[in-house]
C-alpha cells in the first residue's frame, strides 16, 4: 500500500496567512440569513453541558466561555474526561442522548445555536461547523468509496448536482494530497494517514466557517502526524480556516495553534496566546501539565507528576476543582470558586493566586 515516492522534501516556506477580511471575502456560500456580519465568528458564553446518569447529573462542561476569530486556531487541551470534546461537540449539539446543554450560549456570527431546534441546527452542521474525527476508520463508511462519501455532503447539504459534487470531491482530495488514482478507493484500501487526509477533505467539503479537529493525529505515527499537521497548517494559510483543535498532546497545540484553552474537570483553568501560556504558565495545573511532558529540545530531566486523580464530576468539590491536587492550595481554594484574573498580555487564569481581576504582566 505504499505510495510513489516524490522528491524527499525539506519543508517549503509557507505562504503568508490571509487577513480576517480576506477570509470572510472567500466564503463560497452566503452567510446564514440571521447572521450579523459585524459579529465575531464564534462566541461561547458560560456553556454548561451535563450528562444524566442514574444517580444525578455529571457536570462535564461547567461555565466555559471562549471566542474564536476568523482564521484563528484555538487548541483545547486537557486530560481525558476534562470536557474538551464535550465542549466542542456542544457547539453543534452532537451529544449522546443523555447529554443536555443546561445553560449558556453558543453564538456563531451572532446567532445563538443553543436556542435552535434540532432541525434548524442541521443548517449549521457540516455547512458552518464541521468535525475531523479521531478514528478515521470508524468515521468513514467502509462500503462506500471515499470520493462518494466526500461528495455526499456537497450534494445534500448544498444541493449541488451529482456531477458537480463529484468534481468538487476530486478537487478536495487533490487539495489534501490524495493522488487522483486513489479516488475510487475504499477506506480499508487507504493507509491511516491517507484516511485522515480523506477525513480532512470531507470536513472541508461545504467550505465551513469553523473546522473542529478531535484528536486528528493521535493514532498516527510521528512522521505521518508531522505530515498531517503540515497539511492543516498549509490549509489554514491558503483557505483561512478557523480551527478548533482538541487534543491531550500539548506539543501539537504548541506547533499549530495561536491560542490555547487549558481545561480541568469541566472548567477553564487558563486561556491565552500559545506563546505566552506555554512559556509562562500561570495556573498551577498548566505548570504541572507542561512539566509532565517530555521535551527532547530541552534537558533530560525528571518529569513532573500530578498526584491524585481528577474529581468525580457527579459531585465536584466546591471551590476550585484542582484544589485537592494543587501544590499551592490555600484555605480559600476549597471553598470559593476562583474568579478569572485577566492579564495585560491576553491570558486569563481561574486561580486564587491572582487576586485582583486585572493584572500587570509578570516580569
Amino acid at each position: 500500500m505504499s505510495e510513489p515516492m516524490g522528491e524527499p522534501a525539506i519543508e517549503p516556506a509557507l505562504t503568508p496567512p490571509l487577513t480576517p477580511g480576506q477570509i470572510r471575502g472567500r466564503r463560497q456560500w452566503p452567510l446564514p440569513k440571521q447572521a450579523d456580519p459585524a459579529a465575531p465568528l464564534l462566541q461561547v458564553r458560560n456553556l454548561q453541558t451535563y450528562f444524566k446518569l442514574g444517580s444525578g447529573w455529571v457536570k462535564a462542561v461547567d461555565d466555559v466561555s471562549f471566542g474564536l476569530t476568523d482564521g484563528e486556531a484555538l487548541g483545547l487541551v486537557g486530560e481525558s474526561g476534562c470536557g474538551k470534546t464535550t465542549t466542542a461537540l456542544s457547539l453543534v449539539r452532537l451529544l449522546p442522548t443523555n447529554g443536555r446543554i443546561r445553560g449558556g450560549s453558543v453564538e456563531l456570527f451572532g446567532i445563538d445555536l443553543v436556542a435552535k431546534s434540532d432541525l434548524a441546527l442541521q443548517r449549521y452542521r457540516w455547512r458552518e461547523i464541521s468535525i475531523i474525527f479521531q478514528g478515521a476508520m470508524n468515521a468513514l463508511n467502509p462500503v462506500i468509496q471515499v470520493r462518494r462519501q466526500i461528495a455526499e455532503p456537497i450534494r445534500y447539504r448544498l444541493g449541488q448536482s451529482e456531477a458537480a459534487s463529484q468534481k468538487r470531491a476530486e478537487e478536495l482530495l487533490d487539495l489534501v494530497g490524495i493522488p487522483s488514482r486513489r479516488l475510487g478507493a475504499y477506506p480499508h484500501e487507504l493507509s491511516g494517514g491517507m484516511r485522515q487526509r480523506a477525513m480532512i477533505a470531507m470536513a472541508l467539503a461545504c467550505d465551513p466557517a469553523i473546522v473542529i479537529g478531535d484528536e486528528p493525529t493521535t493514532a498516527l505515527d510521528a512522521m505521518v502526524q508531522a505530515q498531517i499537521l503540515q497539511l492543516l497548517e498549509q490549509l489554514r494559510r491558503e483557505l483561512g480556516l478557523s480551527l478548533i483543535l482538541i487534543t491531550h498532546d500539548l506539543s501539537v497545540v504548541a506547533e499549530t495553534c495561536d491560542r490555547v484553552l487549558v481545561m480541568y474537570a469541566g472548567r477553564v483553568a487558563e486561556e491565552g496566546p500559545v506563546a505566552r501560556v506555554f512559556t509562562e504558565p500561570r495556573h498551577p495545573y498548566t505548570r504541572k501539565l507542561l512539566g509532565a511532558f517530555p521535551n527532547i529540545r530541552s534537558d533530560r530531566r525528571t518529569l513532573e507528576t500530578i498526584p491524585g486523580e481528577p474529581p468525580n464530576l457527579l459531585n465536584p468539590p466546591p471551590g476550585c476543582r484542582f484544589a485537592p491536587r494543587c501544590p499551592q492550595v490555600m484555605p480559600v481554594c476549597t471553598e470559593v470558586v476562583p474568579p478569572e484574573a485577566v492579564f495585560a498580555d491576553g491570558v486569563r487564569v481561574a486561580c486564587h493566586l491572582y487576586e485582583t481581576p486585572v493584572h500587570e504582566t509578570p516580569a
Partner: protein
Amino acid sequence: MTELLRLTGLEVHFPVRGSVLDALRRRPRRVVRAVDGIDLAIERGEVLALVGESGSGKTTTGRVIVKLTSQTTGSIVFDGQDVSRLWGTRRLRDYRRRVQCIFQDPYETLDPKQTIHDFVGEPLEVNHVGSGAVERETMIMGSLEAAGLRPAADFAFRYPHELSGGQRQRAVIAGALVLNPQLVVADEPVSMLDVSIRTELLRLMLDLRRERDLTYLFITHDLSLAWVIADRIAVMYLGKIMELGPAEQIISAPRHPYTAALVSVAPSPEPPAAGERAKRTILVGETPDAAAIPPGCRFHTRCPLVFDRCRTDEPPLIDVGAGQSAACWLAEPGPGTAR
C-alpha cells in the same frame, strides 16, 4: 555490566495468503519480512528502548523474545543459554518465569471477571511457585504493594472496572513482577494513559529496576518517551535496526538520516521560534510494504541524502564510536552528524 540477552541474525517472516488465482498462475508466495535480520544485545540492568513506527517490526521483536511468536531464523541467547528452540520443554516454562511482558492495553491483559488478586496469583499457580497458600498470599500482596497499589488489602479484591486506568496498569505490572523476572519486555506500557499518570508509571518502572534488579526492553513509537526512560535507544525501520546508541547521543547527534528526521519532527511543548519550522525534515510518502522491501538500503526511497550506492548495497551497522552505530553509508567513524 554483563550481557543478559543477545539476538543474532533474528528474522521473522509471515507468509501472505495468496489468492486462488495466484496459486493457479504459480506465483511465488509473498512473504512479509516483519523482522529482517536483527543483532542486538541487552545489558543486565539497562533500559533499552526499541523505537519505530507501525510496521517497523518492534512489537514482533518483543514477541519473539517472550516466545509468543517463533523466529524464522536467528538465535536468542539468554543469560548464556541458547533459548532459540525451547518449544514444549520444561526449560521454556523456566524461561518464561524469568522473562515477563507488559502490554499497552490493560483491558486486554486483565480478565474483567477476575479480581486483581487472582490475576496476580495465577502465574504462581501455573508455575507451581510457592509452597502453600500463605506463602503465595505474601507474594501476591508484596507484588501489589511493589507496583504501588498500597495498601494492597484495599485493592486486592477489586475487579478491573473498579480501578482507574493508572491502577489497572499497575495491576498488570504487579502480575509481571510476581514471578521475580529478570527481563521485562514492555510494549507501549504507558501509551494509553494521560501524561500526569504516565510519569508516575515511568517512575515506578525505574524504581523497580533498582529494587529488583530488572532489565527492560521498552518498546515504543514515541521517541521523546524513549529519551526520558532509556539508557540506550535502538531505532527500527522496516524490520532492521537503523541506529543504536546511548539515548542522549541518539537525540542530540543522530547519525542516520531516518533518526535525524524523526528527531526533527518530534513534537515539543515549546512553541517554535520564528523560522524554526523550516528546520523540520518531513519525509514524503509512507513506509514501504514489508512484503516488498526496497533493494539496497531499505530507507533509500525516502532518504533526503540518498546517493547511488544506497540503491544497490545495503549498509551494515557502522560503528561511529562511543557506543553508537548507524546503518548508513554516510556514517563514518568520527565526530559530526549524518545531516
